[in-house]
């Protein structure tokens, strides 16, 4: 198998699995049968994704849908990080270039990107990311009580770390940044379009 086909074949399967998981909560229970850990109440599921070499994750319940980046219709008079709007199953959803929103310089244009629709009761926003790695479970007990790297006022990291709720070292040496979808979507920057 070539490296291309590997990622994509699995990605398609993954998307199917995740989308099933988003619509019905059955997947957790099914997985728990063969997995050793039972559906632990303290367990959270996260969608892991990449932007360049940055490893991020967003809690599964915050996502409504994932997939290949759809056709995006750009609209005028919007900041560059709003790519435009897309027709996602008949619903108009805006697409945000998360990398641009985070003001991370783009390494170069990529065509093959993915999107995740995040939601709060008030709104739905599609974020466009480079790659989706999969879905994984995490025992909340393994999470540090407080984000070890950037908390509150002492946060001297880049601006985007304000939207990170926690940081976790991974076995392979990477650092996982857990995205605070709520904070991201309710941020004033994100909400600059309801009139003022």
């Amino acid at each position, binding site marked *: 198998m070539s490296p291309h086909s590997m990622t994509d074949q699995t990605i398609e399967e993954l998307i199917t699995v995740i989308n099933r998981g988003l619509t019905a909560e059955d997947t957790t229970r099914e997985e728990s049968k063969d997995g050793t850990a039972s559906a632990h109440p303290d367990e959270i599921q996260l969608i892991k994704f990449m932007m360049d070499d940055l490893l991020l994750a967003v809690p599964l319940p915050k996502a409504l849908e994932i997939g290949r980046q*759809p056709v995006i219709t750009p609209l005028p008079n919007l900041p560059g990080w709003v790519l435009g709007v897309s027709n996602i199953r008949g619903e108009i959803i805006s697409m945000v270039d998360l990398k641009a929103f985070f003001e991370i310089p783009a390494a170069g244009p990529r065509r093959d990107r993915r999107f995740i629709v995040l939601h709060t009761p008030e709104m739905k926003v599609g974020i466009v990311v480079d790659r989706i790695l999969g879905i994984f479970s995490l025992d909340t007990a393994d999470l540090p009580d407080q984000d070890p790297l950037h908390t509150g006022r002492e946060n001297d990291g880049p601006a985007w770390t304000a939207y990170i709720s926690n940081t976790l070292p991974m076995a392979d040496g990477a650092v996982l940044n857990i995205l605070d979808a709520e904070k991201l979507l309710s941020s004033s920057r994100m909400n*600059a379009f*309801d009139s*003022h």
Partner: protein
Amino acid sequence: MSMNEIIQGYVEEVRTYLPTLTEGLASLGENPDQPELFEEMHRLVHTIKGASMMVGIPGLSNIALQMEAALTDILSGKLAFSNETLQTMEFTVGRFRDYCSELLDQGVASREKVRETALAYRRLRKLPIEEDEAAVTALLEGVPEIEGGGIGEPAQEEETDEDADEDSGEEPNAPEFDTGTDAEAPPPSASAQTEAEPIPEVRLSDIHPELLDSFFEEAKEHMEDLDRSLQTLESQVTGPAPMTADQKEIVRQIRRYVHTVKGSAAVIGLPTVSAWGHTMEDFLDWLYEGASTIDPDILEVLTESGDLLAAIIANPVDPQTPKTRLLQNRFTTLIGGAGAAAPASEPPSDAPPSAPPTAAPAAESVCREPEDTGIDLFSKQQTLRVGSDRVDELVNLLGELMIAASGFEQQMNRLTREIAELETARKRIRELARDLEVGFEVKALGRLSQTTAATAAPSPLGDFDDFDDLELDRYSELSRIIRHLNESAIEVGAGYNRLTHLHGEFDGHLNRQRVVLSELQDKMMQIRMLPMSTLTNKLRRTIREVSKMLGKQIRLSIIGEEIELDRLVWDKITDPLMHLLRNAADHGIELPRDREQAGKPATATLEISANREGNQVVIRISDDGAGLDYPVIRRKAIKAGLLNADEEITQEALAALIFKPGFSTRDAISEVSGRGVGMDVVRENIQALKGAVRVASWPGKGTRFTIRIPLTLAAVRALLFTVGNRHFALSLNEIREIIRVEPGQWIHRPRPALRIGESLIPLYSLAALLGLKTEEKTGSESDSPPIVLVAAVGDRRKALKIDSLVGQQEIVIKSTGSHLRYVRGISGVTILGDGSVVPILNLPELIGEQAGLSAARPDTRFEPAEAAPQSKGPLSVLVVDDSVSIRQVVSRLIEAQGWKARTANDGIDALEKLGQARPDVIVLDIEMPRMNGYEFLSALNSTSEYRDIPVVMLTSRTAGKHRERALSLGAKGFAAKPFNNEEFVDLILKLTG
């Protein structure tokens, strides 16, 4: 009994005759052959005539006399009951009614009325004109100029309600009532009641049916709430007991419901309802404020009163005087009894003894049919209460249906093209068959003559058999094939005809569907839509009251009363609107003295204007007051912790702070605007409707609030066009003209403009307005004269340059999603049949008519949209292969990615296709007729324009030398047939970046 009381009683008496008279006339108008009805009317009119004279209203008496005389003539057969007679009599009954309603307070201009009536009847009875003067003079003897007036001067009772907005002292069609008692009720001794004033007649035909409908709907809701509250009370009260705080609260609620119903009834002009409501309210006031105990008696009276209110609502024409009188007596007894410190005293003698309250009788009575008393001047239509979510579902489904229909339409267009293709195919077959036939015949003849010549020499019987057999056989076989071919061509032709016919039928069906759909859509809109005018009375009243209270002079002007919105939206937006109005009156507008000092007219202007812009209704509330007080806002914001003391902030951003929770600029809560509802609630309410509110203010000049409410479902006929390779839509009703500009019409200085006829129209480049980079590469377009849309923006014409027209279409306007609630310059988007999203332009905003209106939008830097690398539209791929199935398979794969595929048969064809449009990538086969892949690569390389288009070789030749050759000629990728879909897509993605 004083004279006044006598007259009041008499007026009441006459009033009870009115229904019979009106009804009788109506009935006679339909069938005059009812002598007993004439007699009955004669009797009534006679009574009026006699009694009026007795109580001292000679004018009314004389008017009745005229009608009586005419009726006498009719009864004796001297006068025919003509249409004219009917009208005259109806008019006279109207006069009686005038007396009833005007006699007591302002008085009636009797002499004038008598003269008019007498003359009318004299003409009717064909009495000589010469004697008119004498007759009238005789009649007028003893009749004063004005009869009555000031008789029933009601004792002024100040409204004690906290929201005065429900009452309308100045509403012309809603006279104020102090109590609902009528004159004949025994004057209550020590009660809270005041002098009575008769209830004017209710004329439902005078009330706007829409108002009436919404009143009934509203009243029903309140009555249901009232019933629920009563039931709760009933379940708690089994005997006389001190009232608990909770029970008091319930009483307060009940009073609130009654008060609301009373208020709305007064506003729309149902005095019967408001009168009884008021009486009930008085009782509830006592119960809430004065009474300390509650007992089943009180509850029973309350329940009965509620029922009566429901009954009067159900049939407002009938004031139910006997019942109201009865209940009012019981109110008096109860209040008086409580006053005598004897709660739960014996029930009034004329009321049934109080039974222990059982299941709520009120619940049923609310739904009771209107009682068939009085004149049923209107029949209320059956209404259906359906949850708004259900209607929403229908609306959404309708939207989907319209999108599906437009998808169908597109497919139909394709079908049309395919059928046309079939016809050309048929022609081609026919031609081929003919060619074959002719060619074969010529050949066969030639060979035949040859053979005959050759066989002439040898013996005729020699080898003729084996030769001729073969030749003849083959000849007949071939000619048969040719014949079949011809037949097939005919069959294809017949198939073509059948298809054309079917297509026509489909098209017809589709057209019918389209018509029905648009009708359905209209109806759907109507179900939910109400014009703003249903609200304006309330708004005007609010301003009147508020300005009186504040001692300010305010003129409210309302523009766009015809603008329609979903009735639920109006419901929810009424409070925010009222709040903004009160706020403007209270905070914004200065006192007349201050205004004059500032050089402004003493009377302030407050304007509400509603407008439809694209898929939004925009409501602007502007005043010419002092504007926002920025220093105060700043101080408040710092105090409320919304702002750091040293923070620099623009005025716009400051203005936006007033919408933050917990922000109020006045220290003391003012009676007018500080009702615990802050601007944050206004904003919240509007946002709940997916709308937005903005504020703009000019110190000393005024403040303007702009509310945008998206329409639930809106479909418009729109023009689709392209600018910079992107599709856009614009509502057709905004477009005046579409023209191709000739060079002579272009004007470049002082600014780009067009000369159309005698006028000059400023010309804008839509691409520039939209922040698009115009791609100058497409040289073919610049040759043809540019296309320009002439649009009406405000009251001026503007010309807009576009690239090409796509067509016009019915489109469903959708919002730009829950995130982008408002995008400047865009009024919404639409989804086309193929699923693609097209922005709908908002020209006034794009051209900047409203610049400066928008408050701070900190993060929006109006960057051009192409900052995003993905915004170039779908990838376009040219597939070059001689095999039609390979072309199809590859095209399908490409289209499945949302990209565009075009195909070419061979290298030559591909070069031609390149000239038409430039693809992002080329997929190329090696072996092809006319020009093979290698040759094409070389040709491509030699053209600087195309050299950089990446090429993927797709071939079954996997040998290394083929690959090397291709790569050396400039191919960027290599894929082997059969290919792996994912790998192939990835390869293309990699090459196109």
